[in-house]
């Protein structure tokens, strides 16, 4: 274990050097969160399919329980139960559109993780940085449980538990627990826990901050204390179901899945389950008594329990839907926690947008009208009034709006169009519009993935580290 300890120390030191200006010390946050003994318990695994590139390079790293797909290079890093999904990377010859320019991509893009510690983190999408089109880099970075690094190159950053950075290049920044950032580029920023920030300079700027004390009930994590709260309890309570999925080599799937849909073998599904045409259920998703209509999806770390999704629903990475009925085309953003009850169901009307990192936790039935934009923390119909607005009304904003802790400046129509375009793109990429021959997406391509496992040194000074491995076609 000597080498793994050295590697850990090196990563901590490098992250701290980057964060010195913010006077942020990562050590007390990560120490003892994952004991080294845990890091040798789990195998790593990677997917092979005719639809995905195959180019993995692992060097001087621990990869315990992590999953790899596509093209990635991992060096001097510790990846614990993380998903590194390189199935949306750019290809040589693609044209990247940026501010009216079309920039050609010179070689296949790859995810390059160096000197980083990622814990139960999802890495997905592609670099949106026009300066690094071919490298989706993550270096000198530490991310905690259930963080999402989505199309977001990172250099010298710390992401708290359930934090998401989306389509943003980040440098020397701290992203607090349950904070969501989509801002193009950030540097030397300390983002408070529970901040939800979406900005396109010159077009719009949206920010909401969760009330700290209430947020602490859902996720609380600070130096010297392991992440805790309702979100952690929720996930931990369902951990065992995943254990079986990962322990068994050939798992029998008893749920009928249409030929155009995909239910990942590393997802948990507890009957009754309905999987419609063109549905995508990703690895580490959890379904229990769930009805998924045509083109709906459940991405990594999603939980859909006692709920019905009518169709073309995007349930983004880490979102949780419990005791709810969702109309068609409802978008539920990253890590949102939507929790109704058996006697207090949550209903969300069609074409609604639930902003990333929204919490709805109700004791009375709640109905959200079709075409709503929803954000923040909602526990009652009264809260809903202050944390939602019709998309039509929002689109008419030209200037500014503030509602409680939410502030918006800029062009409302541009903000809504940006979201709607993106939702369409996600559905397209996931294969929701597959017509039997064209418009294939992940739902169709992921059916033919086979999985292979990798193991670390079981003993000796390199115990826990994986040998240098290069995997190519």
């Amino acid at each position, binding site marked *: 274990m000597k080498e793994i300890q050295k590697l850990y120390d090196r990563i901590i030191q490098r992250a701290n050097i980057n964060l010195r200006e913010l006077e942020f010390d990562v050590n007390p946050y990560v120490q003892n969160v994952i004991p080294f003994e845990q890091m040798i318990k789990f195998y790593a695994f990677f997917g092979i399919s005719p639809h995905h590139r195959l180019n993995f390079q692992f060097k001087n790293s621990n990869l315990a329980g992590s999953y790899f797909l596509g093209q990635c290079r991992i060096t001097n890093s510790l990846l614990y139960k993380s998903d590194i999904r390189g199935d949306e990377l750019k290809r040589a010859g693609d044209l990247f559109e940026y501010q009216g320019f079309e920039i050609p991509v010179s070689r296949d893009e790859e995810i390059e993780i160096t000197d980083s510690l990622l814990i139960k983190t999802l890495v997905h999408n592609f670099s949106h940085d026009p300066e690094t089109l071919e490298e989706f880099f993550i270096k000198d970075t530490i991310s905690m449980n259930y963080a999402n690094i989505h199309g977001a190159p990172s250099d010298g950053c710390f992401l708290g538990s359930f934090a998401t950075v989306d389509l943003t290049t980040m440098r020397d920044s701290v992203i607090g627990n349950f904070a969501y950032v989509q*801002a193009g580029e950030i540097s030397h*920023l300390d983002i408070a826990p529970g901040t939800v*920030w979406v*900005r396109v*300079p010159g077009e719009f*700027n949206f*920010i909401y*901050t969760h009330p700290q004390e209430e947020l602490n009930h859902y996720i609380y994590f600070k130096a010297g204390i392991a992440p805790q709260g309702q979100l952690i309890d929720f996930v931990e309570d369902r951990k065992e179901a995943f254990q079986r999925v990962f322990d068994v080599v050939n798992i029998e799937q008893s749920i009928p899945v249409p030929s155009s849909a995909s239910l990942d073998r590393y997802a948990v599904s507890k009957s009754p389950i309905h999987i419609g045409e063109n549905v995508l259920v990703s690895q580490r998703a959890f379904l229990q008594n769930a009805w998924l209509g045509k083109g709906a999806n459940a991405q990594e770390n999603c939980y859909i329990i006692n709920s019905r999704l009518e169709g073309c629903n995007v349930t983004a990475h880490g979102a949780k839907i419990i005791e709810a009925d969702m109309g068609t085309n409802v978008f539920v953003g990253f890590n949102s926690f939507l929790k109704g009850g058996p006697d207090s169901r949550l209903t969300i009307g069609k074409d609604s947008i639930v902003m990333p990192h929204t919490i709805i936790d109700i004791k009375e039935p709640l109905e959200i009208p079709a075409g709503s934009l929803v954000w923040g923390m909602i526990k009652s119909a009264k809260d809903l009034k202050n944390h939602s607005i019709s998309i039509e009304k929002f689109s008419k904003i030209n200037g*500014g709006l*503030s509602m409680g*802790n939410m*502030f918006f*400046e800029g062009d409302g129509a541009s903000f809504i169009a940006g979201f709607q375009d993106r939702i369409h793109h996600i559905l397209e990429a996931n294969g929701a519009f597959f017509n039997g021959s064209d418009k294939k997406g992940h739902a169709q391509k992921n059916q033919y993935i086979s999985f292979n496992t990798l193991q670390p040194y079981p003993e000796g000074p390199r115990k826990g580290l994986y040998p240098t491995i290069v995997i190519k076609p």
Partner: protein
Amino acid sequence: MNYIVKDLMVPISDYATISEGSTFLEALLALETPEVDLKNSIHPHWIVLVLNSDEKVVGKLSQINMLRALEPRTEDVKNIDKLGKFGFGSNFITQLREELRLDDTSIENVYTSSTTLQMKVEDFMKKLADNDFIDENTSLATAAHQMSVRKRLSMLVTRDDEVVGVLRLSDVFTAVINAMKSKT
């Protein structure tokens, strides 16, 4: 004349001082009736020096420090103030503050609340840093340069380690103008 700092400074004895631990109200009264040294300068001075128990200068108080201390500190105000860091426009932020002021009369009460008036000077004074000091033998040109790049309206003048006076921007400016006039 080749001025040096000690030719231009106001001696520390001409300045109003106040002790650490004094309240906002005491500071306000001290600042309201500053000592005015009209023998050496046409400019009144508008800062109060803060002394610790050893009679050493540890901070200074100006009108801007007092006004900053009066800024409301409610959660709503804090939320609005944070917006600048996230790229929101200054006009938008000003408008939000105005709307909040109209909605929340407690903001007006902050000027007279006992909490405000009992604040201690060390909570809102300008604490001194290395670049707040200048040696008494420094030339006019260097002093003008330092005040310019350090964006200071006044600096504390030292003889060895002891503070002996205050160099004010107004006196430096007057000396520079006079020097220019004498050459033309």
